[in-house]
């Protein structure tokens, strides 16, 4: 019986999973940035044609909420799965080479991703009830915080992959 390991090395399989994790993170980053811009700096009505920035933030934030929750959870689960391999194959060699601050930022990214996961149920509840003014402030700042956490996690993960990937 053939398995994928007959065609791909173990490292290639982990690299593919890491790339999928990264692509999901890109989608999440785009959606969250659009939504955060829309809620933190909503576009004003203009008489003439609107520019790129205005169009970028002129999205219907509520329509992104479920997709963002699904993307965060799926990206998180895949990242948590890859984390087991990272602990052996990436972190130990980097420790030997003295990249302690890089590793420290990666551990902090894991904390940020977990903290983001914990506020997703509230985020979803507030966006599902998007017309309730009692949630306006919390909805805005939770969305901005999630976007900041996503940017931080994405950049740290990207830098760490540049320092040492699975290949």
């Amino acid at each position, binding site marked *: 019986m053939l398995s994928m390991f007959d065609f791909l090395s173990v490292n290639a399989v982990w690299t593919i999973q890491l790339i999928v994790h990264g692509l999901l993170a890109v989608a999440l980053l785009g959606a969250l940035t659009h939504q955060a811009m829309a809620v933190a700096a909503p576009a004003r009505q203009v008489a003439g044609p609107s520019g790129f920035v205005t169009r970028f933030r002129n999205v219907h934030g509520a329509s992104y909420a479920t997709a963002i929750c699904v993307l965060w959870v799926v990206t998180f689960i895949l990242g*948590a799965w890859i*984390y*087991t*391999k990272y*602990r*052996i194959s990436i*972190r*130990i060699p980097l420790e030997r080479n*003295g990249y*302690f*601050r890089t*590793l*420290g930022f990666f*551990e*902090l990214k*894991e*904390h*940020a991703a*977990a*903290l*983001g996961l*914990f*506020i997703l*149920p*509230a985020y*979803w*509840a507030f966006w*599902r*009830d998007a017309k309730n003014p*009692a*949630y306006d*402030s*919390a909805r805005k*700042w*939770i969305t*901005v*915080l999630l976007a900041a*956490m996503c940017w931080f996690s994405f950049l740290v993960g990207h830098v760490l992959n540049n320092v040492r990937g699975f290949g």
Partner: protein
Amino acid sequence: MTAVTEPRAQAGSATASYAAFAIVFAIAAPVIYVASELGGFPLFTYHPGTGRIDFGFAAARTNEGPAMYWYGWLATTLIGAAIAGLAATLLPRNVIGRIPLFLIWLLPLLVLPILAYALMPFWTR
């Protein structure tokens, strides 16, 4: 008339119960997470070198590679915060309405520097 309003009332009640769960879950989770990390209370310890899982905190074993606690901290937090959230659904709505919602985004911001401080060996080596 009753047939029309009852489902709506039930839907409103379900929405309020979910909101109560989500709000208390989001407030409890960062507190439990940071306590679990600083206090060393992972629900389990995973040893990726051997695939072994120990209940609670377990130190890395000689010649068996590192121990991972992050999954255990997550499990402790998700269970603890879910219990707090479910308990909140039993509270009267006016009690839930008095919870300051800014805690949901402020607490993660406050615990991040604490978690960064706990990573001090990485910054000072």
